[in-house]
């Protein structure tokens, strides 16, 4: 269930978003890897959603998308739309499934990178940009997803560290609380 994020959390998310967007534009965009450019912004949005819930994820997605579109003079609304959906989806994943596996950030990062690239393409097709589906475009989407996946774990660590104790319910703290209520032991060790 999503609750209203605290002002401290909002401030941390805002500062992190601005820092990551400028780092993306100033550094990461100019360093291609395997022929594609790494895009950290969908990872940021997905991990804010994963840690903070669907409301915070969707709002962060909208704000980060708007910032990217404004700064790069892109069509306003395209990135906001795609990122809002990514942030919301990641938040709902946390609220419904509460995944605890260590590989969860990797899978969420891969899904976010793939969703962002596919989402851009879909919206641009709908807007009538002259670029039919081609093997090259498919290659760009696949490579972009792989590169996004590579950066998912470090990005998750950065987001988690930056948001820190301001999170409404940190999964680590929840695990610790569960362990405490069962006396720190699992039923197996009791037996």
């Amino acid at each position, binding site marked *: 269930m*999503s609750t209203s994020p605290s002002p401290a959390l909002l401030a941390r998310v805002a500062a992190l978003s601005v820092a990551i967007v400028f780092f993306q534009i100033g550094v990461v965009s100019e360093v291609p890897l395997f022929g594609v450019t790494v895009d950290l912004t969908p990872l940021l949005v997905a991990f804010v959603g994963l840690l903070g819930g669907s409301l915070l994820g969707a709002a962060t997605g909208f704000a980060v998308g708007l910032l990217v579109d404004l700064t790069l003079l*892109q069509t*306003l609304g*395209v990135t906001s739309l795609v990122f809002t959906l990514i942030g919301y989806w990641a938040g709902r994943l946390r609220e419904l499934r509460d995944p605890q596996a260590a590989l969860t950030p990797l899978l969420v990062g891969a899904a976010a990178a793939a969703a962002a690239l596919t989402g851009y393409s879909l919206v641009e097709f709908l807007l009538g940009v002259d670029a039919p589906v081609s093997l090259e475009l498919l290659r760009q989407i696949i490579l972009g997803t792989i590169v996004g996946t590579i950066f998912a774990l470090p990005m998750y660590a950065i987001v988690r560290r930056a948001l820190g104790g301001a999170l409404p319910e940190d999964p680590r703290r929840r695990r610790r609380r569960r362990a405490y209520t069962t006396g720190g032991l699992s039923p197996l060790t009791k037996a």
Partner: protein
Amino acid sequence: MYDKTVRRRRAVLGLLVVLSLLLLTAYFGEAPNGRLHAVQRDFLAVVSPIQDGANKALKPVRDLFGWFGDTFSAKGQRDELRREIDKLRPQLIAAQAKERTYEQLLALYHLERLGLSDYHPVTATVIGQSPNIWYQRVAIDKGTPDGVRVNDPVVNAEGLVGRVVAVYPDGAQVDLITDSSMGVTARIGTSSATGLVVPKVGEPNVLLMRYLPPNTVATKGELVVTSGTVAPPDNSLYPPGLLIGQVTSTNEESAYTSVNVRPAVDLHHLDVVDVLTSGAGGRASRLSTLIANLPAQSQGGAGQAEQLAATGSGG
């Protein structure tokens, strides 16, 4: 309580999605001088100094990342370049001889080949680049006060980079030659065949030179340069002889021949570029006017003027 939370969550999502769609529709439908575009320009004016500062501060980090990539590819590039130099040396000698003839013929018409210094180049730093393959554009830190205007060509030491599409007090936006909005009249180095260089649809890093005459012979590795047409109807914004790229293959699928061109400029590593800000009254501008006022049969571009010069007719 639970229902209320669910309703609120859905309402916020719906609101943000609708807001995005409204922004998208309004922005896409309005003119470039519309309200949302103005907001975007104002925003850029505010963040441009921050972006510029961040860009300079983060340059060492960027260089470090770039160094790793460069080291990996340096060996392969060195071998390839050595082979290319061996192949190009005889062509260079032939080209120098041809250039001497070309210069002499041009002198007959009291025309000199335009040097880039006549275009008042303004050196600018690239302060932002879109990570999205759909937007082949960069932001630079020179704008209106530096004499930068819309449609000014942008080059670097490797060749043609693109053209200015929007100018602001603190910077400008440059569409790269691989952007879908670009089209450059060009010719293949060793022939007089001219065509239009556009981005290859679906392949963001490849250019396509279209509308070449059917009998055009283009071999792999030949250089493609701007034709520099200046008179209507084939207006070209670019000075003649700017390197665009190299021919990689030829397509013969229609009445016209087309060739695939690999851009000469490494568009992923743009640090510093020159904006050619030839102002009204400048030498380049005067020369453009002169060519535009040539007799009727020689109008239609510098390409035809060059052909006239080569055949020695029309004088």
